[in-house]
């Protein structure tokens, strides 16, 4: 199904949900205020459903809003987002019956930063970006340039193994398959692992020297649902609010450990970072560790216990004396 067909169906479904009182809110995407961008649409008004859109730029993981909205919600969810929703259900943050998931099989989203790098142009200097299956055509000054779609998709989309929502009430479109045979561009886990320990540490030290502690990574993350984050504790004060690299690094490392088994590799933290810190090189690594040690992927089964509360009597404990 084409995006516009999916979009049409989404608008109808969302309108019906509101009209029939099955949900109080619809959370989806609408056209953003800048070229190509989309923006979350949170509404109670059925007329607003005509603004809902589906396109290759629907980046936000909307499940981040679920814990703050009171009432039943109809939410638009891509593969990774649906798993975040499930993860929230696993953690008893939301109830399954309060959520209507309108799932979108996701063929991967276009990373505007990659587009900008590829063409040495800013987003607002481009004419059009049109995806056609595994190609993308980008026009500048009326001239179109053709690239493999893998050049411009987000790293996490390139590595995504579960593009179709796992949990849904309505699936908009046919299930889709992972994109194959691609390497991520920015996430450099293998490379980092191959470097000596001290260099790895220095790499992160440098990266986190830039952090301004805006907490966008945390606030955009559906897995970071704590009422009060440890960074805001004052007694004891674990880390200073002052953005010293040490404290910035501790913040991010602990955030990663705290969301282990909840992180669905949606990539939002890295996308929103205004200082362009390669956060996915941390989150993805944790995702892999969790999978390797416990064969666990976040948000695959709403009835499963959360990773860090579950256990097997015998589990790898070679590191324990």
């Amino acid at each position, binding site marked *: 199904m084409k995006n516009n067909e999916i979009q049409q169906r989404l608008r109808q479904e969302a309108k019906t949900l509101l009209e029939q009182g099955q949900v109080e809110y619809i959370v989806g995407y609408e056209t953003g205020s800048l070229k190509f961008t989309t923006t979350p649409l949170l509404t109670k008004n059925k007329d607003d459903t005509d603004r809902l859109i589906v396109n290759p730029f629907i980046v936000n993981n909307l499940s981040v809003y679920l814990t703050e909205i009171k009432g039943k919600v109809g939410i638009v969810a891509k593969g990774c987002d649906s798993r975040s929703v499930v993860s929230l259900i696993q953690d008893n943050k939301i109830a399954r019956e309060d959520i209507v998931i309108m799932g979108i099989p996701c063929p991967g989203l276009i990373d505007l930063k990659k587009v900008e790098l590829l063409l040495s142009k800013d987003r607002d200097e481009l004419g059009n970006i049109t995806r056609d299956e595994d190609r993308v055509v980008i026009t500048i000054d009326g001239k179109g340039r053709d690239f493999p779609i893998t050049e411009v998709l987000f790293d996490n989309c390139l590595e995504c193994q579960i593009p179709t929502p796992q949990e849904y009430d309505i699936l908009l479109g046919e299930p889709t398959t992972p994109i194959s045979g691609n390497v991520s561009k920015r996430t450099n886990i293998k490379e980092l*692992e191959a470097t000596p320990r001290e260099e790895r540490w220095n790499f992160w030290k440098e990266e986190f020297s830039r952090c301004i502690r805006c907490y966008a990574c945390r606030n955009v993350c559906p897995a970071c649902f704590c009422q009060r984050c440890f960074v805001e504790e004052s007694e004891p004060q674990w880390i200073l609010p002052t953005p010293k690299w040490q404290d910035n690094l*501790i913040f991010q*490392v*602990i955030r990663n450990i705290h969301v282990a088994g909840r992180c669905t590799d949606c990539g939002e933290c890295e996308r929103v970072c205004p200082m362009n810190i390669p956060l996915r090189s941390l989150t993805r690594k944790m995702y892999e560790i969790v999978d390797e040690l416990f064969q666990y992927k976040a948000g695959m089964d709403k009835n499963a216990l959360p990773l860090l509360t*579950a256990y097997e009597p015998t589990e790898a*404990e070679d590191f*324990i*004396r």
Partner: protein
Amino acid sequence: MKQELGWEPKLLGFLCRWCSYAGADLAGISRKKYPANIEVIRVPCSGRVDPLFIIKALRLGFDGVLVSGCYPGDCHYQTGNYRARRRMAITKKFLEYIGIEPQRIQASWVSASEGGKFAEVVTAVTKELKEIEHNQLFADEK
């Protein structure tokens, strides 16, 4: 970096009050010899240990952290040590990935009756820590 002579690593132990803490006590009472490098914080359960405690200890300059709890199946709260085990497993791997020496993150099961084992663990961990550098991870106040 060359270690200065007579350098002794500082180890912070988070010991479960139901087992390892008693084990440490027993080691003391029965005069088992083990290095005096460990400072101990008694915790209600190894499951109480947030990885944040570990990295905070490193931030404060401890050279290593030891989390010690009850053997699997023996947790006073049934599952605390299982949870600790999962958490320690991912923490250890993750901290190693970002560039912290694996020797700094240590875990053990020590029961209340294992004074001898506690002494052995502390001896072994201290030895391992001596083989790596003094913790300078967070020292750069740039």
